[in-house]
């Protein structure tokens, strides 16, 4: 037993050499940036109960990926542009026709998917971008994509940091936000747009099927244990970073797909938060 342990450690250390490769470094950098971005926005997604919005935008962005593939344009850029348009259309349908959010999202979600599937079907053969879109592939991130992820994420995080109080008030109650001078008719569609952009960026690492996990799991775990908004936001970011790094590391160690390992790390984090909350229940009463 004593002889096996050093061998196992040496084996793991040998596996970790993979982090010397540029593709792995790009994966870690992209993961760290997107974890921060999605976990901060996840706070608002939870507060406004908008998880269906992120799911809807993720699925609808298939149309953007397909247009990019068909016309040989960068699929990520096309999907980003189209998702911003979808976000604005959802807001407009909600306001103009006073339709419930989930109805507007449902319409865009299915339309985007239908357009995407139709366009993809026009191009025969194996489509690696499509598989990457569905399941994500953090290890396949290219240098130019990393730049797009970094620049868009920094822009969104800066915007959220500057507008933190108005955004939180708006998420709590639109009337209160208006009474506090928040330009609600401008900030609301802007929030929809930045959330859409973040979701599409997240698709690069987790794919359309799993991207919501990185929005929901860190913030849901943080909400369970946090006793103030400030801690909620910071814990959400810390949990997300831990979840992404643990997911990447475990996928390397066990030679398993990265996306699902990130999601399962998030699930473990959520369970640990639940257990912590159970043992510290006295802190949560007045």
């Amino acid at each position: 037993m004593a002889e096996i342990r050093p061998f196992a450690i040496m084996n793991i250390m040998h596996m970790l050499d993979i982090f010397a490769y540029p593709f792995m470094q790009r994966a870690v950098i992209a993961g760290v940036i997107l974890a921060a971005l999605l976990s901060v926005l996840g706070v608002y997604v939870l507060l406004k109960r908008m998880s269906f919005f992120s799911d809807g935008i993720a699925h609808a962005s298939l149309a953007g990926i397909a247009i990019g593939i068909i016309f040989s344009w960068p699929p990520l850029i096309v999907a980003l542009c189209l998702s911003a348009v979808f976000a604005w259309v959802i807001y407009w349908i909600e306001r103009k026709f006073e339709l419930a959010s989930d109805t507007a999202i449902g319409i865009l979600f299915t339309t985007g998917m239908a357009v995407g599937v139709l366009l993809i079907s026009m191009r025969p053969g194996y489509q690696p971008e499509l598989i990457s879109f569905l399941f994500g592939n953090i290890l396949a991130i290219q240098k130019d994509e990393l730049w797009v992820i970094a620049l868009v994420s920094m822009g969104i995080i800066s915007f959220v940091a500057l507008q933190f109080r108005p955004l939180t008030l708006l998420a709590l109650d639109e009337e209160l936000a208006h009474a506090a001078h928040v330009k609600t008719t401008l900030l609301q569609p802007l929030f929809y747009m930045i959330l859409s952009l973040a979701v599409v960026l997240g698709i690069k690492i987790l794919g359309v099927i799993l991207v919501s996990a990185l929005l929901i799991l860190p913030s849901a775990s943080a909400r369970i244990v946090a006793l103030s908004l400030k801690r909620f936001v910071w814990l959400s970011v810390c949990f997300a970073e831990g979840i992404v790094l643990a997911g990447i590391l475990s996928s390397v160690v066990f030679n398993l797909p990265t996306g699902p390992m990130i999601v399962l790390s998030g699930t473990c984090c959520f369970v640990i938060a639940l257990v912590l909350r159970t043992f510290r229940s006295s802190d949560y009463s007045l």
Partner: protein
Amino acid sequence: MDIMISIRNLSVIRDGLEVLQNIHADIRAGEIVAVIGPNGAGKSTLLKCLLGFLIYTGTITIFGKRPTHALDQIGYVPQRFTFDKNFPLTVAEFLRLSCDSQPAIKHALKEVEMDAYHDALLGRLSGGQLQRVLIARAIANSPKLLLLDEPTTGIDLGGEKDFYEIIAHQNQQHDVTIVMVSHEVNMVYTHATHVLCLNKSVCGMGRPNETLTRDVLELLYGRDTAIRDHEHHAHA
């Protein structure tokens, strides 16, 4: 006294229905005005117009400005404040979302006797405590006008009494003009200096004893209710 709020030809149409029709009203500085009327009379709509939250025709001026330009002098307490009770937001953090000054937040919480709850979670407060915090939020920026939409809904009798004491204190000690929507006619006699009777259009406005006549109550609530309320008040 100076006219603080001037409303002229105010009409609001929502979903093809006229919710408010040709409203004319003046509210002077220092008044406590109760806006009363039956369900669907347009009371909350009027308040939202005063905030510039709804599209309307006609003219509203507050301190001589359009409502949206006068928001820095208005405090607002909504009819319903529904939020996720498990959201980890403390009372102080909630107030900080709309007020920059920490001393002003502490003072506002003290005014409503909620200073002990500075770090309490908002979702753990009772209905009455939450209402006090909403008032603290509304007065934290030292407004000259408070708009309250059915502020005692869901509060017990003790909480209601405390609430009206806080409102009277704001009015008398800090010269805050109050406009509050209420479905409770009897509170008008004890807690308001003026009453605005609304049933899509203005049925009457002035001092409660002069305004709440049998005819006005009948216009508001129908014949039977009008007689009962009027007699009840006469005996009281």
